[in-house]
């Protein structure tokens, strides 16, 4: 019987497999950041252990950093302390750090791929649940907790039971204005925020194949929002072209060898999945979430569900979510006034996202009632955007381009959405208080976010596209 892509990669990384024990899985690269690593370094000190393979560990500062004036010392004392601690720990344990001011600094899931560290067939972990992003290259990538960060630091291995395998296929042609973010929000809305728990999810189908690497990263990024252990997409020519020539990508003979191996990485035709789901691209509208978990999403023209449509035992949780969001049964979000637009996060802060938004907002201006933040995913994205003159387009539109970091995705730095305010956000989580205490988040694609910034209301991007000749490719 054939093997799934996931099993091929897993099997190639098993160091030891014992009945009744989780497998010991070898990790190619361990990404670390300031928030989930300090306690792990402390653990190593207590045990008197070094970092086992410091050269396979890459550090950056992203979660806590300010997104303006990064050349100045961090004002917020605790954030500064945490970032300083990372610098000290990396120096002590011999780990390369792409800290503030470094040309490679950025959100950990943006820099791994853009530096050519993330490659097909590899295993990657990070103390951050959106590590699933790296699976877009046809790799196994897990988010892990701090005890496991310590484990990987100490051993370059992760103790892990093999998850079940799910295949999600999307076939067909997307409507104009619908993109990768809409696909994944649609899938999660169909299978719920827990629908992928216990699974490694492989995305397949011609719609997925047609996506750029950046679109594929957006899809895999949000695998965790349906509870999946990881998400992955088989590598193809698009993947190979993307990796080629990047800073740390293999070169010369090494490259040829690598590509030959990558071409063997796909699920065999007769591979067995524990679960297979299929969706039609034509059914997907521009999506928006209305609730407090990413499974609570609808097409932008649809109405919020009625409480009575849920089972009795679920109604309490549902009503709590609607109350928090200041919404009521059957409300339509379309046309609802908003206060903030956040374009950023490891889901949608890559150069393509920024280009797409810039192309759309060129010659337009944001509505007066809206504050817009555009936060690039990395220093390299920021510089590229400036080289292409996107910053000027953004400035004229009232969309200031800030400096890289996680920013309002989780509101650990100063970039917080105020209590009660509505934010259309390209990030990945709409949990209560995620973007700041009592903030209210509508998750959407970069195009929907940009269009909503222009009108000051939740907007159907298709209306814009109909009325303009420009065919936006998403």
């Amino acid at each position: 019987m054939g093997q799934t892509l996931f099993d091929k990669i897993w099997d190639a990384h098993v160091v030891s497999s014992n009945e009744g024990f989780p497998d010991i899985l070898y990790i190619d690269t361990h990404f670390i950041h300031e928030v989930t690593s300090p306690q792990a370094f402390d653990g190593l000190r207590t045990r008197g252990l070094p970092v086992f393979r410091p050269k396979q560990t890459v550090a950056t500062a992203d979660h806590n950093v300010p997104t303006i004036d990064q050349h100045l010392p961090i004002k917020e004392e605790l954030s500064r302390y945490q970032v300083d601690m990372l610098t000290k720990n990396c120096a002590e344990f011999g780990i390369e750090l792409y800290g503030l001011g470094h040309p490679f600094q950025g959100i950990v899931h943006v820099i791994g791929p853009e530096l050519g560290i993330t490659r097909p067939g590899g295993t990657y972990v990070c103390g951050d649940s959106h590590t699933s992003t790296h699976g877009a290259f046809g790799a196994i990538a897990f988010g892990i907790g701090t005890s496991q960060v310590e484990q990987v630091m100490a051993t370059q291995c992760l103790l892990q039971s093999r998850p079940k395998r799910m295949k999600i296929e999307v076939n067909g042609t997307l409507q104009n204005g619908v993109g990768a973010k809409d696909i994944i929000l649609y899938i999660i809305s169909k299978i719920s925020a827990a629908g992928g728990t216990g699974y490694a999810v492989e995305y397949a189908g011609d719609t997925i194949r047609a996506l750029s690497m950046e679109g594929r990263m957006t899809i895999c990024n949000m695998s965790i929002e349906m509870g999946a252990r990881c998400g992955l997409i088989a590598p193809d020519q698009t993947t190979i072209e993307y990796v080629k020539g990047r800073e740390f990508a293999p070169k010369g003979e090494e490259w040829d060898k690598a590509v030959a191996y990558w071409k063997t990485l796909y699920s065999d035709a007769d591979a067995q999945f524990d679960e297979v789901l299929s969706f039609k691209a034509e059914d997907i509208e521009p999506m928006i979430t209305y609730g407090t978990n990413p499974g609570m999403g609808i097409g932008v023209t649809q109405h919020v569900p009625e409480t009575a449509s849920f089972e009795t035992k679920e109604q309490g949780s549902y009503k709590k979510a609607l109350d928090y969001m200041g919404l009521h049964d059957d409300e339509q979000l379309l046309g609802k006034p908003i206060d903030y637009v956040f374009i950023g996060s490891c889901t949608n802060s890559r150069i393509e996202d920024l280009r797409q938004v810039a192309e759309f907002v060129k010659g337009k201006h944001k509505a007066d009632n809206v504050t817009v933040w555009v936060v690039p995913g990395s220093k390299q994205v920021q510089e590229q955007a400036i080289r292409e003159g996107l910053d000027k387009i953004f400035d004229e539109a009232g969309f200031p381009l800030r400096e890289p970091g996680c920013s309002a995705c989780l509101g650990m730095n100063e970039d917080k959405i105020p209590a009660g305010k509505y934010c259309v956000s390209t990030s990945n989580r709409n949990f209560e208080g995620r973007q700041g205490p009592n903030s209210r988040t509508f998750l959407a694609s970069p195009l929907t976010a940009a269009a909503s910034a222009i009108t000051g209301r939740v907007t159907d991007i298709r209306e814009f596209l109909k009325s303009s000749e420009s065919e936006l490719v998403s």
Partner: protein
Amino acid sequence: MATKIFKHIQTSVVPLPIENIDTDQIIPARFLKATTREGFGNNLFRDWRFDENNAPKEDFVLNNPNFSGKILVAGKNFGCGSSREHAAWAIADYGFDAVVSSFFADIFKGNALNNGLLPVQVSDDFLKKIFDAVDADQHTVVEIDLVDQFIKIVATGEQETFEVNPYKKACMTNGYDDIDYILSKKELIEEFEEAK
């Protein structure tokens, strides 16, 4: 390095019948700036427990003196969202030894097990029985036995068995630690690297 040992507990419970409780609710991101593992219990469920002026919200269960105990009982898909282990630390630091739910998010489950906090997954039915029992009597006592893998509502004798990974069970009942285990296979790791 030895970790906390867990075999058996019998205590009253704290009910939190909400579904999809994510780790941002358990411990909001703005409290993740600490660089040690201690003290997170003070901010457990921070924004449900306290208002903007840091005054306790009376209607939240942790502020209700009638409820106490070492077992937190919550709605399904507990611990979804962010991988922050701080969520498990906060629950353990507050004083809980076990969390009962009808479904756990994967990463949270792993984090809890790595911190001597036992996640007990029960059926939807049994979860409802516990909530009903607590509705009827706030001091309902529940027994959890990890060795024999059962959970029991003491007053009624209703019980259910639960699954736990045998390796993790051995770790928790003996205080074993993952890193010691993996390092005992260091030669295999080095052989693997050679062969790559």
